[in-house]
């Protein structure tokens, strides 16, 4: 029979489940009319009315059976049973909201963590190239005796692309960062410089406009393809942008097209904002330089060609290159990494990740199994009663599994929400940076499938054993209230005890670690930075060199900008500096310095010292304390004698215990007189040890780049906008980018904060799971021992004694676990010592705190079953005999 017929029947049966009552009546009427007609025929044949009706019913084969058969055909019986099971399960779950909430939350944590990690693994490792038919794309690398190299020189790439017959196309790209200026503000963007066939080899077309023309007919003017993300972020998805000019690092480019949504370039985790063709970005001489290996190369296989065939050809081509250019390409070979090989390589880290987080899910499942067992114990009588009433064991098992499945589904749903939340958080977890970082994370079909599989798997882990166990309930003994399977439960009991001890010990280790890391973070936050982080400092990085300014014009430009800034209302200080403290570039400049009259280590003539060039009011503006001498003044101009201000550490290193002011150092062949000493400031990172540092007058050190530092009285946002338009008024072409002191702080503390957050989250997860497991074990024993407790109470034990008995069990377990955890912590924390500042890895306060927390949580977890045990009515628990 045709499928649509079956489908149609299925639908009707599905719909038949609605309005079942009316349909039943309808069929009853039909049957009645059938029986009556049959009876009439019988009477006509000479039977008595009663006999005729009896015969009619016999022929029908029983009215109820017929109605049942009819009903089963009309609806979907299995669906009805399932629905019944689900409703029953939901009722059971609703009746025990505490149990349900804890079980669902536990599963949600496990499943959510797995989903989130899988999403990351999928995006970072497993996902194929963002291209059409990605299976035919493969990366080309070169092997040298020193190891593998990802990059090729452009001439090598060209030779490969020109000579390969087994590859349909080969593309090359290199990644850079450029400055995009839109109106007044500049921002850093990632650009890929690509071979002209980049988009065509990938099989990607612009969603608007076009991509690059073929190499044979290069574009006449510089053109750029921009990403969908940049188009939305910066240009408000303006469709008229195509054909217009945008300014990139001081040069105008025509926007040729917009890349399709979701296309972020070929590097995972580093999204590309725009693409430029090599022709406009590199001079021909640069592109002919076989020594500079800058380009990553990807090839597309012809359909039907195997990777092995391509490898053979590339091997030949590689040898040819090595022969032709022995000085450069000697012993270098070209190798293809096929999609299958790439995936195989990606599998290892994926498996490691998933095993780790899978263990968490396993522990969650074990905990939920513990809870389910507690529930199962309490339900033994109900189950026995249902068995006695004739419910099949299989049906019963199905019912119990349905309950577990419900728990898992709720857990999976909540876990999915949790994962979505975590993924939302992901960008905030990335290090603060001027260019965007981050994987393209989203919950797609494969992730949903993974979550469903994880949920089903957890049902098998936590639901199956209790379901089998419970459906094996022996009728008689359960109804009589006897304990069964004692030997079996003893074995599980010890295993569960071990699990509890392990979880408590682990959570103590994690909590101790998080305590230490948080204390270290607090200490770091209180460290003096050498400037005042409370001030509303705004940093405008100016780069007039990019638009062709020489140092003289630049100095003039800086001067004008600084004057404009100082004149703005709401500005407390405005100053210029070459480098910004506590940023990547803070120590970017060093100069070799010789110091007359001071013996340098190892008899060297000069030492490299980091430096900055600042304005006179710089120290006052950022809040660096002047220890001795004076700041720079207007007298320290280019024509005057060279002066320098040194850091405290520099003063103490070279002139310990001596007068420093007035001494000389020789930098760059010029003698400079020390006029001041300032406190040490953090240059690159919070945790660096202070090193010698020196400041020169900004005007005595000509440069084409500099940073205007403005201290706002209030509302830095409004001031930023006004300042930007002021800078624009001086010269609208000079790129500007803005940073705030908050941003610098975020960047500086990012790693510490991440570590603290991560370890603390693990610690909390650990203690949560440990508490649940402990609760499960204690509650299980309370159920098992309810008769014993009843007897004790009957023999005169007070409620207090029972409370103590049960709490004692929980606390004993917790204390042993905590003891193990303390010993483990002492060993493990030593590993942390390089990460800790201002706190010893054996900090007694932290150890005491984490132990106390663990014991308190254990107390709370045992308290619930202990209360229940204490409220046992001895009469009732003994009457079940």
């Amino acid at each position, binding site marked *: 029979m045709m499928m649509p017929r079956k489908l149609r029947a299925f639908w009707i049966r599905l719909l038949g489940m609605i309005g079942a009552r009316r349909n039943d009546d309808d069929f009853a009427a039909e049957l009645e009319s059938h029986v009556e007609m049959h009876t009439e025929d019988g009477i006509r044949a000479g039977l008595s009315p009663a006999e005729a009706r009896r015969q009619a019913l016999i022929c*029908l084969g029983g009215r109820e059976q017929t109605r049942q058969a009819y009903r089963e055909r009309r609806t979907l019986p299995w669906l009805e049973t399932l629905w019944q099971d689900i409703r029953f399960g939901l009722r059971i779950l609703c009746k025990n909201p505490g149990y349900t909430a804890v079980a669902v939350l536990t599963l949600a944590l496990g499943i959510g963590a797995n989903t989130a990690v899988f999403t990351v693994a999928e995006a970072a490792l497993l996902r194929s190239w963002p291209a059409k038919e990605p299976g035919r794309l493969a990366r080309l690398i070169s092997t040298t005796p020193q190891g593998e190299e990802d990059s090729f020189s452009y001439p090598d790439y060209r030779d490969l692309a020109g000579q390969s017959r087994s590859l349909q196309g080969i593309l090359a790209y290199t990644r850079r960062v450029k400055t995009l200026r839109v109106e007044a503000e500049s921002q850093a963007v990632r650009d890929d410089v690509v071979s002209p066939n980049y988009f065509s080899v990938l099989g990607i077309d612009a969603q608007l406009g076009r991509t690059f023309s073929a190499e044979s007919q290069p574009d006449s003017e510089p053109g750029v393809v921009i990403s969908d993300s940049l188009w939305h972020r910066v240009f408000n998805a303006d469709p008229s942008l195509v054909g217009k000019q945008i300014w990139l690092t001081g040069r105008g480019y025509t926007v040729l097209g917009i890349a399709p949504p979701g296309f972020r370039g070929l590097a995972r985790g580093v999204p590309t904002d725009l693409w430029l063709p090599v022709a406009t970005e590199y001079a021909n001489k640069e592109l002919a330089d076989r020594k500079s290996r800058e380009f990553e190369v990807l090839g597309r296989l012809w359909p039907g060609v195997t990777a092995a065939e391509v490898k053979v050809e590339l091997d030949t081509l590689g040898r040819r290159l090595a022969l032709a250019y022995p000085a450069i390409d000697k012993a270098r070979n070209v190798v293809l990494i096929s999609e299958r090989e790439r995936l195989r390589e990606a599998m290892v880290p994926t498996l490691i990740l998933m095993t780790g987080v899978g263990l968490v899910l396993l522990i969650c499942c074990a905990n939920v199994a513990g809870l389910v067992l507690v529930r199962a114990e309490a339900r033994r009588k109900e189950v026995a009663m249902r068995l006695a009433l004739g419910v099949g064991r299989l049906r019963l098992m199905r019912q119990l599994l349905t309950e577990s499945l419900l728990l898992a589904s709720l857990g999976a749903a909540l876990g999915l929400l949790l994962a979505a939340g975590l993924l939302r958080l992901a960008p905030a977890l990335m290090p603060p940076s001027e260019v965007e970082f981050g994987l393209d994370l989203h919950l797609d079909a494969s992730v949903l499938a993974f979550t469903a599989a994880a949920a089903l798997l957890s049902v098998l882990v936590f639901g199956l054993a209790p379901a089998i166990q419970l459906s094996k309930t022996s009728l008689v003994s359960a109804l009589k209230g006897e304990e069964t399977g004692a030997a079996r439960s003893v074995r599980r009991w010890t295993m569960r005890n071990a699990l509890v001890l392990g979880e408590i010990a682990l959570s103590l280790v994690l909590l101790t670690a998080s305590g230490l890391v948080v204390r270290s973070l607090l200490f770091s936050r209180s460290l003096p930075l050498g400037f005042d982080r409370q001030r509303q400092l705004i940093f405008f990085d100016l780069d007039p060199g990019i638009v062709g300014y020489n140092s003289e014009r630049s100095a003039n430009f800086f001067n004008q900008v600084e004057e404009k800034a100082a004149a703005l209302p709401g500005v407390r200080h405005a100053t210029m500096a070459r480098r910004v403290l506590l940023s990547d570039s803070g120590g970017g400049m060093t100069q070799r310095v010789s110091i007359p009259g001071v013996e340098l280590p190892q008899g060297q003539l000069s030492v490299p010292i980091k430096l900055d060039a600042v304005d006179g009011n710089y120290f006052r503006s950022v809040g660096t304390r002047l220890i001795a001498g004076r700041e720079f003044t207007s007298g320290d101009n280019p024509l005057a004698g060279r002066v320098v201000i040194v850091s405290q550490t520099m003063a103490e290193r070279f002139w310990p215990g001596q007068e420093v002011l007035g001494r000389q150092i020789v930098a760059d062949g010029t003698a400079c007189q020390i006029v001041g000493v300032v406190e040490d400031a953090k240059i690159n990172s919070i945790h660096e040890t202070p090193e010698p540092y020196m400041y020169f007058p900004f005007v005595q050190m000509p440069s084409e780049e500099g940073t205007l530092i403005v201290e706002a009285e209030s509302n830095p946002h409004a001031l930023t906008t006004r300042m930007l338009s002021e800078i624009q008024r001086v010269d609208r072409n000079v790129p500007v980018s803005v940073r705030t002191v908050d941003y610098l702080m975020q960047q500086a503390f990012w790693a510490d904060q991440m570590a603290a957050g991560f370890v603390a989250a693990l610690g909390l997860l650990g203690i949560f799971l440990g508490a649940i497991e402990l609760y499960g074990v204690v509650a299980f024993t309370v159920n098992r021992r309810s008769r014993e407790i009843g007897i004790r109470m009957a023999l005169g034990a007070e409620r207090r004694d029972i409370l103590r008995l049960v709490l004692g069990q929980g606390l004993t377990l917790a204390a042993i676990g905590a003891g193990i955890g303390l010993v483990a912590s002492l060993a493990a924390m030593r590993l942390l010592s390089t990460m800790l500042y201002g706190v010893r890895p054996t900090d007694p306060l932290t150890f005491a705190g984490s132990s106390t927390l663990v014991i308190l949580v254990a107390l709370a977890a045992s308290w619930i079953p202990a209360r229940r045990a204490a409220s046992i009515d001895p009469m009732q628990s003994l009457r079940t005999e």
Partner: protein
Amino acid sequence: MGEKSDVWQGTLALMALRTLESMGPLHGYGLARRIEQISGDRLQLNYGTLYPALLKLEQEGFIRSRWGLSDNNRRAKYYELTKAGQRQVKKAAAEWEQTTAILACFLTPAEEA
């Protein structure tokens, strides 16, 4: 009463369809009696099994039903073939004939021997 055969699995639907095709609209009881008559009273038909079979045919769209009045002015539910049902009778009959023909090839020589 002579020896009666049980109705083979799956053949009841074809019998019902075929009967409806030749007789036009019938109610369940009439259909059951008619099937028995056509078989020459050789079939032992459990009338109750007819109704789920009819329901299945209706769900599959081969027949439709409506309430009507019988010859004795009694309310009864009448079944009749749909267009799809008429096509299905032809198709199923052809399939069945082919099956029996094949089967016959195996059975006939044995009788001759």
